[in-house]
């Protein structure tokens, strides 16, 4: 059962990892467009 709990926790960790990548992916274009406007 320890393996099952470890598995569940590792899935949650991978969910958080993908969430961080998602936030970066949807926020980068806006930052770039603001930078372009400044230029």
């Amino acid at each position, binding site marked *: *059962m320890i393996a099952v709990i470890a*598995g*569940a926790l590792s899935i*949650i960790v*991978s969910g958080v990892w993908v969430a961080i990548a998602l936030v970066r*992916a949807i926020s980068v274009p*806006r930052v770039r467009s603001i930078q372009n406007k400044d230029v």
Partner: protein
Amino acid sequence: MDKVLSVVAVVAYTAMLAFVAVRARVAREFVEFSLARRALPLALIFGSIAAAYVGPGFSIGFVGRGFQSGFLFWGIGLAYAVQNILVGLLVAPRLRSLKDCHTLGDAIGQKYDRKCQILAGIISVGLCTGFSAVMANAGGVVLSDIFGFPNWASVVIVVAVTASYTTFGGLRASVITDAFQFTVFSILMPIVLLLAILFHLNGGAATFAREASAATAAGLNSTSTIEIVGLVAAFLLGETLIPPYANRALASKTVRVSQNSFILAGIFSAVWFMVMISLGVVARSIIPSGTDEDHVLLNLVDSIIPVEGHALLLVVLMSVIMSSLNSLLNAGAIAFAEDVVKPYVKLTDRTALNIGRCATIAIAAVAAAGATAVPSIIKGLLICYAIWAPAILPAAIIGLWAKHPRPLAGILSICVGTLVAVTFQFILPSAIKVPAIIPALGSSILAYILGHWLAGESGGASPTLRLNMECEGWK
């Protein structure tokens, strides 16, 4: 209260999804629509592949199987993990290395000839439409359950919402929304398991071990060896390199990202199946033993967290269904534009993009119309698996590895594989005892060998090879 909370949860989820889809930006060129400019990082490709394969079968289906046959299905599911790891090690890097390649059909066209590309394209579009119809059916069932709409109206709503962001955003929107949906279900489902184990499982680890062993023994007794072989074959080959996965391999930032994302997705699938099977095993000591396979997860969640549980599960289900559906709509549309239309007509980038968008809408419409004809989720998926693997895999995998693949071998393999699969799946389903995928795959490989032999050493060489030979002669 339960109903209100469910409606609020689904509306909030849809609003959040719409926000993410809008942030993903509209695709303005075909290369953006089909390959997201080949700039997607590891985490997004990994999350998107995992979100595409975790559909209703790999969530509700596996919990039900765990309830009935314990860890037997985890062993069978490992074939799927092995498949993903093998694709990551052997196929994805070769696919990603090809230049100007938008689809698997495109790769087959580069390795063999245009006829093979068109055949592969037609099969890809048909398969994506079939898979989409299965997902639309599943989505319709979930939405009808919440709002009480007629089934056809629920199917139309699910397909229309998914098609809207896929049509405008293309692959990037599909991958980004997949990542959002992956985050939702990969956090919520393990929490359900942890809650069940820590607070509702009387007897702790000893009860878990006893139930797991009893269910697995019952599963082994009720499943014949030939059934296990057929299931392992379907899990190993059925979804290998289906268009959405091939597109993600091609859209990766680098060859290494393409390789690692498939390997990670394979490891993730093994862990995911273990968690789903464990939910089924835990459910054995919480819900009544005669519960229907497809209702085990719903009943378990209702028993653990009755009010919030229903809403939570609906959000998870919407995620697993919509993430699979958007990937299939996008992949089918790209295959149509790139493999079916482009070989006949020289298209400008703008026209290709518009054809891709129109094809997304058309595939969504056909899938919605066909959703009511889907027999059941698992049966629908098995039909698609039985045709895809024999039709495409031998030609695609040998083509990527062989030095001089011959077009005749590719054409024969694709045609014979498709015909044998269709014959044993639809026309003569009771003629053989093994699943249709096995004889169809065998025939496809034999047809490939025959075609290779008939084509001879140079007569059947692909245009690329002939060009290379001419260049070498010129030097």
